[in-house]
């Protein structure tokens, strides 16, 4: 039988039961759409991280308190309390090629203004912080070295926090917020940055001089983190080495002891974040693939029903000279057409879902050719795989018994 004749026959058979065909393909539709959308979301997250690295510069590095082998990233860097302000000053003083250094302390704090309350993240940093993180302002500006020296009660507010408490960014400027009952005057509103590598909203923050944060609010003496930026053109690796040596020396660590601090470059942090999102993407893609297989089983089920229903038709075709292979191809084409059609609709649905997700949430969805091609090919394979058994069954029917079938 000619291929286009087989195709026409298959299409006709499928169109005869439009609703059933659609429902049968639904498993594949959902599977394909899920695979593409999931991988798209994963890629979106990865791309966001890459964009952030690009925006923040690859010249930053962070020194965390505590060793990397104990607790590590998931245990939360910086909880060990081994870094001091003196370490930060020493880095600034002694290491050449360092552009900016800021100690960072942080804590969760309820802040209020009038009868508005909000639970946010309080960051205590040096004046260098804003240039290191390339963070600009929509209103007002940063605090200065003098404010840090005097533990001034001034603050810079993130967009999210500003909106929650004051309703708008303009409103926030010049207002007073109470942080654990300490009043701070808002002198700047930060430009929005979106989610961090690890999914936290970076705009939900209140940034104050580290001196004010440590003395007036958090009451801590050690710092969990020091962020350092390296001058353009200087080797980040070299600075990492020098910082490491300096702090080891300062902490009087013998060479064979594990350091009580951890240094991570911006790039390493980004890689860790992408690794996490990659694992997530793989996992989600895998789960979605299972629904493709379930879709394939649905196709097999309906094809088996179809073969039984059309036993007589098969008998007639065999009687007038169809070979077993003709029947096999006919039913196989039907199954593959179902799964490919499902695949196509699924691809369309994935793009639609991506558009809706991006409309309704800040989550970027980035659909690449890979998963589209992969899931389409996979749905074709599913059609062949799960269509084969019913098609074989149809092809091996005995013509006389098939003709007699009621």
């Amino acid at each position: 039988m000619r291929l286009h004749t087989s195709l026409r026959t298959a299409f006709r058979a499928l169109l005869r039961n439009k609703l059933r065909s659609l429902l049968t393909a639904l498993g594949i539709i959902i599977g394909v759409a899920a695979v593409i959308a999931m991988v798209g979301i994963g890629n979106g997250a990865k791309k966001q991280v890459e964009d952030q690295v690009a925006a923040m510069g690859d010249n930053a590095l962070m020194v965390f308190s505590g060793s990397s082998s104990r607790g590590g990233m998931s245990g939360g860097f910086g909880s060990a309390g081994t870094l001091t302000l003196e370490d930060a000053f020493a880095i600034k003083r002694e290491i050449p090629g360092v552009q900016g250094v800021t100690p960072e302390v942080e804590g969760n704090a309820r802040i209020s203004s009038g009868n508005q309350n909000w639970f946010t993240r309080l960051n205590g940093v040096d004046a260098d912080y804003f240039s290191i993180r390339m963070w600009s302002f929509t209103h007002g500006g940063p605090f200065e070295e003098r404010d840090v020296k005097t533990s001034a009660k001034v603050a810079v507010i993130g967009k999210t926090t500003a909106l929650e408490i004051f309703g708008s960014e303009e409103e926030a400027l010049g207002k007073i917020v109470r942080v654990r009952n300490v009043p701070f005057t808002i002198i700047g509103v930060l430009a929005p940055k979106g989610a961090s590598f690890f999914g936290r909203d970076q705009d939900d923050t209140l940034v104050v001089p580290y001196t004010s944060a440590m003395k007036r609010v958090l009451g801590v003496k050690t710092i969990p983190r020091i962020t350092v930026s390296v001058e353009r053109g200087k080797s980040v690796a070299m600075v990492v080495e020098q910082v490491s040596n300096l702090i080891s020396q300062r902490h009087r660590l013998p060479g064979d002891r594990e350091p009580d601090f951890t240094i991570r470059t911006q790039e390493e942090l980004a890689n860790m974040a992408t690794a996490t999102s990659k694992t997530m993407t793989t996992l989600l893609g895998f789960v979605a693939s299972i629904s493709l297989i379930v879709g394939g089983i649905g196709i097999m089920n309906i094809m088996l029903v179809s073969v039984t229903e059309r036993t007589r038709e098969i008998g007639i075709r065999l009687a007038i000279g169809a070979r077993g292979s003709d029947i096999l191809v006919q039913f196989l084409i039907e199954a593959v057409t179902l799964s490919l059609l499902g695949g196509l609709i699924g691809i369309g649905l994935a793009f639609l879902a991506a558009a809706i997700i991006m409309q309704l949430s800040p989550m970027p969805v980035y659909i690449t050719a890979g998963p589209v091609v992969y899931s389409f090919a996979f749905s074709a394979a599913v059609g062949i795989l799960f269509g084969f058994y019913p098609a074989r069954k149809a092809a091996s029917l005995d013509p006389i018994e098939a003709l007699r079938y009621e």
Partner: protein
Amino acid sequence: MTPIIELEDLCKTYASGEEPVHAVRGVSLTILQGEFVAVMGTSGSGKSTLMNILGCLDRPSSGSYLLDGIQVSSLNRDQLSDLRNRKIGFVFQNFNLLARTSAVENVELPMLYRRNPLSAAEQRKKALQSLEMVGIGKRAGHTPNQLSGGQQQRVAIARSLINDPVLLLADEPTGNLDSRTSCEILGIFQRLNDQGITILMVTHEPEVANHAKRIIVMRDGKILTDTQVQNRLQAADELKNLPTETVS
């Protein structure tokens, strides 16, 4: 005349039930080209079983079957399919047309399975000619459920002839039809036979059988009698005598 069918001690035993059923037990028979044979016999005498073997739908348990000089018992499944496609036309009691498929497409069906298919346009032309020949050209676009039994049987005959077979096998082709329609179908058979097609037809009605040239009567899987028809009926003449109705 060349023999179309040569059977030598043909047997068919079904082993399905408690004890084996000997449906055909030792049939030897020769049918020459251009013959029109009616097969009669009581129910269960093995007529359909014999027809299925002759039509290459089934294989004999033993014995030899030569169809147009080809030893059928040695062929595989695909070769039997090809043989059915090129050499044999089937007409069934219950028509066996594809539902929801137009008459002309039903007629085209055997051409789709040819090893050397014609172009779509040629297929369509041939199918329409074939429908015209059985007097139903105007209904080419109708589906089986829009056609009467007689009309459906005409479509089935048009389909059976489409690949120019050497043998037309009809198992009770008039079994579901009234006498006038039966007469019309027999008229078509007689005309085709006059054109040289060999026909084998199973029937229970002596009236119908008398339209053939030769009658074989079976009993218990064997041939009981094998006679030439003396006073052969001509369907064309009968139709003239029947009260005139508009045909199809």
